């Protein structure tokens, strides 16, 4: 097995036992990137040169740690000091932040070796990475298909072995859905578990940063490093972060699992439903108690989300005006002209569309009918989950409505693209944690299984995920790529 095919855990052990050096590990990654990146296009910026310096330094100091010396990628909407942070937008094509996001700081302290910034849908708005202002990313399992979005670059890079793990962000499913499409593990923690400082905001009350990894164990290791209170984020929870590895057990006898019927209805491909039904049987085999349940307001989550998220985004993206950083249309004659043409040119169509939608929903006369209404629906969605978690430890569903679709297949109709988020969105509205892991395959294309838990139940989710993972071999399958 080549080094790049190993897990974070395994490489960490090898580094600790000095079987390999950080530089050797990096070299393997660099070689892999050289082999496949031109086909996948997962990266917006490669920082292999800087990585070499970091790896060499770590080796010379003999540093050891769970993530020390292990190459990773960061979704390009997290600020990295001195390194271009574009959000895959022409608006920020040349923006170099003078500061690091808190999570980047944490990874640096842990000795991580960042090899590059990862492609995404522009400003995290999209479900396929086709909205990237630069180029689409290709799914390693089938290069004619999308890797999902908005963290398509992260999921593809992890699946293809270009990085051992990645940090990505999830506002309506942007970690979980690409993880599902690319056959990897993606977790969205409870809102407030991971600092948002340095994450370019899309929808402030929904955004969370989380890991993308090949195994559940790796996910626990990254969670250990990134979770925790941050004084620079007022919405960050103050609590003791457990060692998530302690939850990696295979005994889940008696675990109460509910599958909400609304997540298995029309809109979800039959093959996906069938695959997940098998997952339910597997869980029963493992001793869990699996029952059908209901989250009655589920269908209202999508419209509520597509009011709340664009509304917050319309305000969060107002700062992009060409005055202090980023792209500026220098031909404009007056300030309003400059703002308007800079923004029209700097933003792609999906971003423009959502800003318009959000502005409308907040505008005078419409606030009550749209934004306020959506916030009320949000409460009902949350209450559905609260009630379900009175009875169940974990809820389960497919992550995505289909397997990865073809590039170009959905990009014409915005609404149909939005529909593909129906299974992941409710989690963000309620602020609860959720993880997607490989649940099976249809025609050699991955199908993700989504587990949802009550707030701060990441441990339970990791346990339920680990038990399933260890009882199957899906996590051992990797895309075959011609090199």
């Amino acid at each position, binding site marked *: 097995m080549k080094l790049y095919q190993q897990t974070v855990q395994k490489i960490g052990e090898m580094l600790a036992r000095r079987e390999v050096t950080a530089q050797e590990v990096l070299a393997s990654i660099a070689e892999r990137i050289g082999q496949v990146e031109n086909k996948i296009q997962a990266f917006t910026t490669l920082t292999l040169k800087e990585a070499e310096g970091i790896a060499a330094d770590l080796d010379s100091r003999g540093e050891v740690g769970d993530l020390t010396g292990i190459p990773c990628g960061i979704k390009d909407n997290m600020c990295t000091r001195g390194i271009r*942070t574009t959000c895959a937008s022409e608006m920020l094509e040349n923006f170099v932040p003078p500061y690091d996001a808190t999570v980047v700081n944490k990874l640096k302290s842990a000795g991580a070796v960042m090899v590059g910034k990862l492609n995404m849908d522009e400003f995290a708005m999209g479900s396929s990475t086709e909205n990237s202002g630069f180029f689409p990313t290709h799914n390693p399992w089938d290069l004619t298909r999308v890797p999902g979005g908005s963290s398509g670059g992260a999921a593809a890079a992890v699946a293809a072995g270009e990085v051992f793990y990645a940090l990505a962000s999830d506002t309506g499913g942007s970690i979980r859905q690409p993880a599902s499409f690319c056959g990897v593990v993606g977790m969205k923690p409870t809102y407030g578990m991971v600092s948002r400082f340095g994450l370019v905001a899309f929808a402030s009350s929904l955004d969370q940063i989380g890991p993308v990894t090949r195994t559940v164990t790796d996910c626990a290791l990254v969670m250990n490093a990134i979770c925790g209170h941050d004084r620079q984020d007022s919405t960050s929870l103050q609590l003791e972060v457990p060692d998530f590895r302690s939850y990696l057990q295979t005994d889940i006898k008696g675990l109460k699992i509910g599958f909400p019927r609304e997540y298995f209805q029309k809109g979800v491909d039959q093959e996906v439903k069938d695959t997940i039904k098998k997952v339910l049987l597997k869980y029963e085999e493992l001793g869990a108690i699996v029952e059908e349940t209901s989250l009655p307001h589920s269908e209202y989550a999508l419209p509520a989300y597509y009011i709340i998220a664009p509304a917050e985004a319309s*305000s969060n993206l107002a700062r992009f005006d060409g005055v202090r950083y980023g792209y500026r249309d220098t031909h404009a004659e007056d*300030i309003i002209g400059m703002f308007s043409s800079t923004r029209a040119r700097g933003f792609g169509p999906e971003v423009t569309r959502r800003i318009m939608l959000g502005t409308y929903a907040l505008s005078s006369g419409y606030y009550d009918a749209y934004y306020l209404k959506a916030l009320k629906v949000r409460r009902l969605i949350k209450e559905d989950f609260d009630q379900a978690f009175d009875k169940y430890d974990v809820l389960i569903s497919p992550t995505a409505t289909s397997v990865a679709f073809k590039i170009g297949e959905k990009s014409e109709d915005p609404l149909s693209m939005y529909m593909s988020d129906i299974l992941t969105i409710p989690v963000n509205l309620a602020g609860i944690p959720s993880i997607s892991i490989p649940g099976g395959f249809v025609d050699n294309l991955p199908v993700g299984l989504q587990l949802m838990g009550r707030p701060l139940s990441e441990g339970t989710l990791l346990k339920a995920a680990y038990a399933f993972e260890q009882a199957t071999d899906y996590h051992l399958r990797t895309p075959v790529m011609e090199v």
Partner: protein
Amino acid sequence: MTADRYEAVIGLEVHVELKTRTKAFCGCATSFGAEPNTHVCPVCLGMPGVLPVLNQEMVEYALKTALALNCQIAGYCKFDRKNYYYPDLPKNYQISQYDLPIAERGSLEIETEKGSRTIGITRVHMEEDAGKLVHQGNIMTTPYSLVDLNRAGTPLLEIVSEPDMRSPQEARMYVEKLRSILLFLGVSDCKMQEGSLRCDANISVRPRGQRALGTKAEIKNMNSFRSLERAVDYEIKRQIEILEKGGHIIQETRTWDEDQQVTMSMRSKEEAHDYRYFPEPDLTPLNIEQPWVERVRRSLPELPDQARERLVNEYHLSHYDASLLTTSKDVLDFFDECVNQYHEPKVVANWVMGELTRLLNQNNLEIKDSKITPRFLVDMLRLLEQGTINGKIAKVVFEEMFTTGESPDKIVKDRGLIQISDESAIQAIVRDVVALNPKVVEDYRNGKDKAFGFLVGQVMKASKGKANPEMVNRLLQEEL
């Protein structure tokens, strides 16, 4: 008179820059006059990915102010985003408070000629300041502007009054009173010229007796108390004139032009602002419980009205004098310190309100910059009391102290200003003066009382002002 047929209705919105050490939502130091863009960080620059964190001191100052203004403190309040585009607003939204401000329903008293009037305060809320725009010439003609964001993110309090004022004078009094309360609290420098106290006026007029309000205009850009009074006065007259001619008042924003002494419409290309307020997701709401409010209440310093009462009751000063001494905390502190050392409040008051104020104004100084300390004033008053110097000399000594910062004892000694109280010496001068001015002496003997004063003056002049006035009077009387 036309004006009497109408009643002016004036409300004021005052923005106060708080003098906390750091900005509202980040740790940059608040500043004034620093080199552009040197007190900024990614947060107040509105860079991508940044988040605000609320400055506790800002909330404390807001609570102090609200309590000093007799407001109801909200048990629960939150922040909202006010969305609009302007180059001095880094995020193109301002973090402010919309429907749940920290305090509402307060009041303050102003002293008018007709007595005390209560002016209602609608609300007090917290928000952040924008940066500064610098233009070449004026905003209408400049080809470009420069943006300095040092000020962006400075904590502001917005204090909105009820439309209870009825004249330019009342408007001015309201702001003066508000300012002095804020100075006593120590929450702001309140310098209108520097922009740490800003005032906008909402003005309408209506026929006297009518209950319905007229259409109001908002007036901005009044940078001093005098401008405020003049602008309000002008606007009232402007509106009355329009109504008299049968026209309508347009609801608009107007700017006070200091050069032309008129209010002018601010022609704007845009539509009326739609601020699209929504709750700020990056900040938590505030639960303000009673213990916190009580702690702040207990920490309130003596306020102007209380101080004025104290001066009237304890020191038996007139209401008027007490008011003057309590407009500024610095002046009050100076006064109190003097009286502490020298228990003649009326005398001290006269010197502080008289000579000291005159010299300070003449030299454009604040009392805290004065070289005359309470100690010096007290020492001088003792010299006066003891007869070492007389009243006229005291004024000379006072001015010397003010200029040089030397003690009164030193000045009197160095310049030989000790009062002449030697009878024989004065008598000699008196005789000389009488001898040199026979005509005047005759005038006096013929009943012209004024002539006496002239002779006294001549004696004083001859003694270089140092003669003991009482003695001069007596001896001159005897001589004549």
